[in-house]
């Protein structure tokens, strides 16, 4: 069993998927509005299991990413538990994300390229914080979680694939774990949507942005290709054009279609990263 848990493929896929399914399920039973927090919580649990608990203060960018994610999770849980919405919460989310990005990026701001990268990451962070959640199909009550969760899965997949091709397997593992964690949440909301996305869900998307920052600033990976994956963040807007099926099968098909539409840009980004390396894999 322990050998299985040591396998990098298991650590990047099955383990975070199972952990996320358990955590989202537990939150579903205990406090349904907090269910989306299971994604970030699952990511942090797998991080500790695979990498270990980072020191405080963290000496490295991955350590800063962990502790920033933990703070973000607390922010998301507090906001969702209190039922908070609106611009003030978005501003708090933006402040957390911007502060985390700058904390991680500071040691690497030694070139114009790094500064430009950070500006782009801050713009994406602002989108994550302030963009309106996708509209619920036919309902005004709760925000639909499928599109934003699919966006998160796609972005995390793009970061993981780019990292794997770009000689940074540990960042790839964590990004793919985040994608699998989002997958666990999606499974809980398929074919019937049971939970809202909330602030916790947006925090999880913010963690994907932080992973992209570490990959961009501290490795040689071709992270410019991640710009090709950004359309995945528009899955919520695109979902309005996806025909809404009737009945259980119809809804299942609609949700699957939204997920596929979101993942397509990620696959394009990964393909571009592979092409830029000349098709040569790293010698792990």
């Amino acid at each position, binding site marked *: 069993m322990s050998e299985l848990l040591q396998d990098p493929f298991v650590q990047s896929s099955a383990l975070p998927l199972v952990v996320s399914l358990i955590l989202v399920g537990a939150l579903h039973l205990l406090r349904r509005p907090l269910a989306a927090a299971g994604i970030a919580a699952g990511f942090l649990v797998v991080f500790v299991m695979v*990498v*270990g608990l980072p020191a405080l203060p963290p*000496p*490295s*960018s*991955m350590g800063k990413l962990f502790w920033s994610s933990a703070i973000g999770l607390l922010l998301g849980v507090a906001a969702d538990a209190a039922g908070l919405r609106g611009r003030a919460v978005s501003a708090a989310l933006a402040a957390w994300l911007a502060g985390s990005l700058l904390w991680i990026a500071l*040691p*690497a701001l030694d070139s114009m390229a790094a500064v430009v990268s950070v500006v782009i990451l801050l713009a994406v962070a602002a989108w994550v914080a302030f963009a309106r959640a996708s509209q619920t199909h036919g309902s005004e009550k709760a925000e639909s979680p499928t599109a934003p969760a699919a966006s998160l899965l796609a972005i995390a997949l793009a970061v993981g694939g780019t990292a794997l091709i770009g*000689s*940074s*397997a*540990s*960042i790839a593992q964590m990004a793919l774990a985040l994608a699998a964690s989002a997958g666990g949440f999606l499974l809980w909301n398929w074919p019937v949507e049971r939970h809202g996305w909330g602030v916790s869900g947006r925090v999880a998307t913010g963690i994907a942005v932080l992973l992209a920052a*570490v990959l961009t*600033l*501290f*490795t*040689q990976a071709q992270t410019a290709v991640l710009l090709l994956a950004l359309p995945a963040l528009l899955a919520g807007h695109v979902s309005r054009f996806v025909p809404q099926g009737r009945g259980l099968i119809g809804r299942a098909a609609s949700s699957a279609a939204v997920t596929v539409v979101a993942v397509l840009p990620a696959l394009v980004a990964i393909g571009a990263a592979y092409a830029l390396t000349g098709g*040569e894999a*790293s*010698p*792990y």
Partner: protein
Amino acid sequence: MKKTLFAAALFVATAAGTLTPAFAAPVSYKIDPAHTAVAFIVNHIGFSNVIGRFNTVGGDISFDKDAVEKSTVNVTIDSTSIDTNHAKRDEHLRSPDFFNAKEFPKLTFKSTKIEKTGDKTGKLHGDLTMLGVTKPVVLDITFNKDGVSPASKLETAGFSARGTVKRTDFGMKYGAPAVGDDIQLLIEIEAVKS
């Protein structure tokens, strides 16, 4: 009487000066990068051992040949200079998976104690700092020789050091234990008198 006392005092002072050994002071040396090698051996999934080196090494040594315990060693290694004869692997080694060279461009070693174990051998105790983590390490050190090098015409001292460190102690956990945790160190140093 006074002359006798003076002569006796003079005799005692001279005798004391003759019997007391002349203590050599520590001599300062600067590491000669052209004749210094910091190499390592790490097991690769049980199939073979990968041999690599750091190509940029610097530092200084204060060496007291007659009182080795008073000697000191300070070494700085450029982590971006890692070289395992494979560009892609070297890129991976510089990544956050291993040496995280962008965040931690330097490895440092500062000696804390030297124990003499033989005529030319000893144990070099020191603090190795890697990935922001400092841990004590012990190296088996051999003093090869010192003198004027016929090649450079400079006063030179040469040393060899061997040891093993566990990379996971420094937080470098990726791939362990499939990619070896125990890293064998092979160090050859020539240092030129400052």
